[in-house]
């Protein structure tokens, strides 16, 4: 058989070569030879295909099968199965990041589906070392057209019409630049290509040079014709040896074919091209510095004007564009400026290549129409964030750019919008960051880079960035002081105004933009000495402890548990959180999300270990209390005996105070006893820890409701010197749809409270729960236990976006709850005054909203009815502070909660402190415990002017650790659960404790991030 029937394209871009593409290609060739297929199958090494994270990748034509993560050892199997027998090798097919579904063909991948490839049109499709393949893709036809059918003015006109702007950074209109260079007078002119792509994270220029070098050569020839130049230079970074090599081959081929040199294509036009290599100076990406470097000098920028178009290389008029800009030119000439301008937005035309990197599934190069939203790029093309983590920000534009936070996921990625947000398009580096990124550290990183690369010629850049870096470094070390942020802003603005070149002027951008969007993180570093992301080494003892809202010494009590030293472990836990047994059951365990063990296998089951530990406590032990008769004599009121109030009272008591707690309901515990069902949290567990707090000298008075039984001014009159407001957010939000008042419609908190406190609650027939939070799931599972025939949860967003605890949702489904995602209620249907059903509408996902999630929108289908005998609304909780703060002038937040200093709980009224849900809206138990502790310290400081929080002193690790030992090899142990069939009709606790063996093994999985080498 002498006809080639299949082409096997192996990506030989830089990324894939580094992961072994060439070894695979060699093995493939030899396997093909062995099977005698050499005549039929052609192996081609192409430029970058884009999805670098999956490399080495390959495409097999004609079927378009897309393979990933290839190894030399896979070659024989592919040849035998696929090339010989026509069966693609399933296990090597590209997999969708979200699941295991294999995607057979290139065209079906979402990664490629939404892209428009103009600049990257040939990358990954042709062999860059063979000019014939470029010719087959209409190569040099644009040059031919320009030389034989167009005047230089017409060429420039076409480029102007396309609206293309410089893709290297500043975004200056390319056609205009060409017109200036044409108009300039000089004995010689030059065309230059900037391939000194230095922004960390951007590599599109490298990919074009490696994968399609002829497109740049052709474009430079066209540009030379248009502006009247005969000589060109491509300035390539020294770090790109492969690009230099391939460009060199391409230039040689073009010369041999007469496409460079004298009298090109039989016309009078002559043009030649040379490569100049950079030598590792970032500033040489700046246009004037680049030219001084080509001239053979230190690559320092020079002031503009004169602009390069007038006085550039060796004083001659010079045209400088970057690789990406040039690569689009042949298509613009061939297909017309109007065609190119049909992509993009009003002001930003065409396509832009982004280098997607960081916390995103499909890292690599993507080319999209300008104006695509950031969310679409990150989630649709990029496949979302790995590990289901949350998007925090995208850093766009490298060291000259800025960060775009979650609220702006829906903005179009065009020049103007990015500028408005304090970022820039720059060269198109797009680094995605999840919640594990510290924005202060990110700013520090970029500034360190700029400071390293500053050429030192002008003072603002050399000294100014150094001062900024010093401030950032001290903030990251936990030594920041009030006013540092203001100092950074002032310095940054001054550098912007006074630096000599683009590098210096844009150097403060990463700092200024992170301050603009993430000011709270700077404040947390400076004031609370806290790095929420767990990044800054001096502020983070261990990532789990740092992630705990109550600051519990996680590695400490986990390792003590592993040594069976349970009493000490409990004591250590209660140093920072009195509700050990409660949290062992209901904590959201943010600690586990940050557990470093997950980089090895899976996080330590910290809550599981804690549950076992809490179950070992026979008689409740009391924590260290520092008696203080002076404090004991002072009157402090705590309003609300929920987790925030209990925690505040506990820590006050440990300082020797004797606070009085006022609770509106007949039982203390707040949401712990009113909302959380007993199958998750048995009541005796709560009672036990409440009693422990009472034994410290805390007086809890139940049945005392603020506004009904007492008032704030009244407390003051009774001599209370300080008051902590921990009343929660106890009101359920209303649905706001017709029929809400009908009999059979309940609000989740009321429904749960009625059963939990009153023991009553008749449920029957078909129950529909509206909402997706924990209250919704609690209500659904409670209804099922109280005798409902069916329970259906309607949620207007997707299941993955439900705020409820994932494990709870799974358990609910196991128990028989039906969850219907993307369904929104429109009306409660009423028959004879009673609920009959819920008229609902299917939703579809629309654009991204300010919470960074896709906003649900009504689908076009007709509404449908979900039949129901009872409806429970669980769509949120609110605080109605008007009941008790009227006339006091208490400041509230925009959302209607009490405004309180997150560090001290202080409100706008000096003697009033607040924390927990009342201050931040519905949140977790651990958050409330932490807020209570901070308010207790705040109150003590308000009363005494001093800091006495002895429990905050860091204790050295109590358990020895051998850093040389290998990590314990056990996998994460799953929690044991009560069998589903035994759950119906009872409120018996569902989650069971570990066996001792399992608990000890699990505890020993801890990597002991708290351990430090001796200083």
């Amino acid at each position: 058989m002498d006809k080639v029937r299949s082409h096997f394209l192996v990506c030989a871009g830089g990324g894939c070569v580094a992961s072994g593409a060439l070894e695979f290609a060699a093995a493939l060739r030899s396997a093909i030879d062995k099977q005698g297929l050499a005549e039929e199958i052609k192996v081609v090494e192409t430029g970058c295909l884009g999805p670098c994270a999956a490399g080495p990748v390959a495409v097999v034509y004609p079927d378009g099968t897309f393979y990933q993560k290839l190894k030399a050892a896979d070659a024989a199997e592919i040849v035998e199965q696929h090339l010989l027998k026509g069966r693609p090798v399933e296990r090597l097919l590209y997999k969708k990041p979200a699941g295991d579904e294999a995607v057979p063909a290139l065209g079906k991948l979402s990664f490629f589906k939404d892209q428009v490839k103009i600049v990257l049109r040939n990358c990954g499709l042709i062999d860059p070392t063979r000019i014939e393949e470029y010719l087959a893709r209409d190569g040099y036809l644009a040059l031919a057209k320009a030389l034989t059918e167009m005047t230089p003015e017409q060429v420039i006109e076409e480029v102007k019409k396309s609206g293309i702007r410089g893709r290297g950074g500043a975004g200056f209109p390319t056609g205009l630049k060409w017109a200036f260079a044409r108009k300039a007078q000089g004995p010689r002119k030059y065309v230059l290509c900037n391939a000194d792509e230095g922004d960390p994270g951007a590599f599109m220029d490298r990919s074009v040079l490696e994968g399609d070098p002829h497109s740049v050569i052709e474009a430079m020839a066209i540009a030379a014709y248009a502006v009247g130049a005969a000589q060109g230079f491509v300035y390539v970074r020294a770090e790109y040896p492969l690009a230099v090599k391939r460009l060199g081959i391409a230039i040689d081929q073009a010369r041999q074919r007469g496409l460079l040199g004298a009298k090109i294509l039989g016309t009078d036009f002559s043009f030649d091209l040379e490569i100049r290599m950079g030598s590792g100076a970032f500033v040489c990406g700046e246009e004037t510095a680049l030219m001084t470097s080509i001239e053979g000098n230190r690559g320092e920028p020079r002031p503009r004007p004169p602009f390069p178009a007038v006085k550039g290389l060796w004083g001659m008029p010079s045209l400088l564009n970057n690789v990406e800009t040039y690569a689009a030119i042949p298509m613009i000439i061939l297909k017309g400026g109007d065609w190119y301008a049909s992509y993009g937005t009003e002001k930003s035309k065409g396509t832009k290549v982004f280098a997607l990197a960081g916390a995103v599934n499909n890292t690599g190069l993507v080319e999209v129409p300008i104006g695509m939203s950031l969310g679409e790029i990150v989630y649709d093309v990029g496949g979302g964030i790995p590990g289901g983590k949350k998007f925090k920000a995208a850093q766009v534009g490298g060291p000259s750019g800025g960060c775009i936070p979650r609220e702006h996921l829906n903005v179009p990625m065009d020049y103007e919008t990015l500028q408005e947000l304090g970022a820039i398009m720059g060269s198109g580096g797009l680094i995605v960051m999840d919640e594990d990124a510290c924005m202060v550290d990110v700013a520090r990183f970029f500034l360190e880079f700029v400071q390293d690369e500053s050429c030192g010629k002008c003072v603002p850049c050399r000294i100014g960035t150094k001062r900024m870096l010093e401030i950032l470094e001290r903030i990251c070390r936990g030594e920041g002081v009030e006013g540092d942020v203001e100092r950074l802003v002032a310095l940054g603005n001054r550098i912007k105004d006074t630096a000599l070149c683009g590098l210096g002027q844009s150097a403060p951008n990463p700092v200024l933009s992170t301050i603009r969007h993430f000011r709270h993180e700077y404040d947390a570093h400076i004031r609370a000495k806290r790095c929420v992301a767990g990044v800054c080494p001096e502020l983070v003892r261990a990532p789990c402890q740092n992630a705990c809202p109550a600051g519990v010494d996680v590695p400490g009590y986990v390792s003590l548990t592993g040594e069976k030293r349970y009493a000490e472990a409990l004591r250590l836990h209660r140093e920072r959180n009195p509700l050990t047994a409660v949290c062992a059951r209901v904590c959201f365990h943010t600690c586990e999300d940050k557990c470093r063990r997950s980089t090895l296998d899976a996080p330590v089951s910290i809550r599981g270990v804690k549950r076992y530990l809490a179950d070992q406590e026979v008689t409740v032990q009391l924590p260290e209390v520092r008696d203080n008769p002076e404090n004991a004599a002072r009157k402090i009121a705590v309003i609300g005996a929920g987790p925030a109030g209990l925690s505040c009272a506990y820590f006050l008591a440990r300082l020797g105070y004797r606070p009085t707690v006022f609770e509106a309901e007949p039982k203390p515990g707040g949401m712990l006893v009113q909302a959380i069902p007993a199958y998750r949290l048995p009541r005796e567990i709560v009672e036990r820890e409440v009693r422990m707090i009472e034994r410290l000298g805390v007086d809890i008075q139940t049945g005392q409701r603020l506004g009904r039984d007492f008032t704030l001014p009244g407390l003051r009159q009774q001599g209370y010197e300080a008051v902590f407001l921990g009343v929660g957010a106890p009101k359920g939000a209303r649905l706001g749809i017709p029929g809400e008042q009908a009999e059979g419609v309940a609000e989740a908190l009321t429904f749960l409270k009625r059963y939990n406190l009153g023991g009553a609650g008749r449920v029957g027939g078909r129950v529909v729960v509206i909402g997706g939070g924990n209250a919704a799931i609690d209500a659904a599972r409670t209804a099922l236990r109280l005798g409902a025939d069916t329970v259906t949860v309607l949620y207007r967003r997707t299941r993955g976006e439900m705020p409820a605890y994932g494990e709870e949702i799974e358990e609910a489904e196991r128990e028989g709850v039906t969850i219907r995602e993307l369904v929104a209620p429109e009306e409660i249907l009423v028959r004879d005054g009673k609920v009959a059903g819920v008229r609902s509408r299917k939703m579809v996902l629309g654009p991204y909203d300010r919470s960074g999630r896709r906003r649900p929108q009504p689908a076009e289908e007709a509404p449908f009815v979900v039949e129901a005998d009872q409806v429970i609304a669980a769509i949120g909780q609110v605080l109605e502070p008007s009941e008790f703060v009227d006339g006091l002038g208490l400041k509230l937040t925009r959302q209607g909660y009490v405004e309180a200093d997150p560090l001290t709980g202080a409100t706008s009224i000096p003697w009033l402190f607040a924390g927990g849900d009342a201050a931040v809206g519905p949140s977790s138990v651990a958050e409330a415990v932490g807020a209570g502790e901070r308010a207790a310290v705040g109150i003590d400081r308000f009363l005494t002017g001093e800091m006495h929080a002895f429990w905050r002193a860091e204790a050295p690790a109590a358990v020895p650790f051998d850093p040389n030992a290998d990590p314990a090899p056990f996998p994460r142990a799953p929690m044991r659960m009560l069998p589903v069939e035994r759950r119906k009709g009872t409120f018996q606790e569902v989650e069971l404790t570990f066996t001792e063996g399992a608990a000890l093994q699990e505890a020993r999985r801890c990597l002991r991030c708290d351990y430090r080498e001796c200083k």
Partner: protein
Amino acid sequence: MGDKIQSVAELKALAAKAREELEIRGAPKATVINVHMGTCGIAAGARDVLACLAAELEAAGVRDVTLRQSGCAGLCSQEPMLTLTDKNGTQFRYGKLDSARVREIVREHVVGGTAVANYLIRL
């Protein structure tokens, strides 16, 4: 490496020639012929059928056919087999192929547009 390109016409001629070579990387053509290449098919001579088919298509100057191979179709007794999917998406399955049959299928069906009823496998 070739000589200098002297004119636009020469460039276009070269491009046309190069394009043929790269055709395989384009979208699938209107008609797709799949030769079944399971172990049984190969044992029965599917590789010769594939080679013959390629040669016949070439000889007949047929350009709008994508030639593919796939796994066993589950009818070992009929091997070697091919499945032809025409531009309307209708599938025709031919069995017990040899070079004479392949030639006839190319002539009658691919070029002529009429299925060769005698060799069709009816299910």
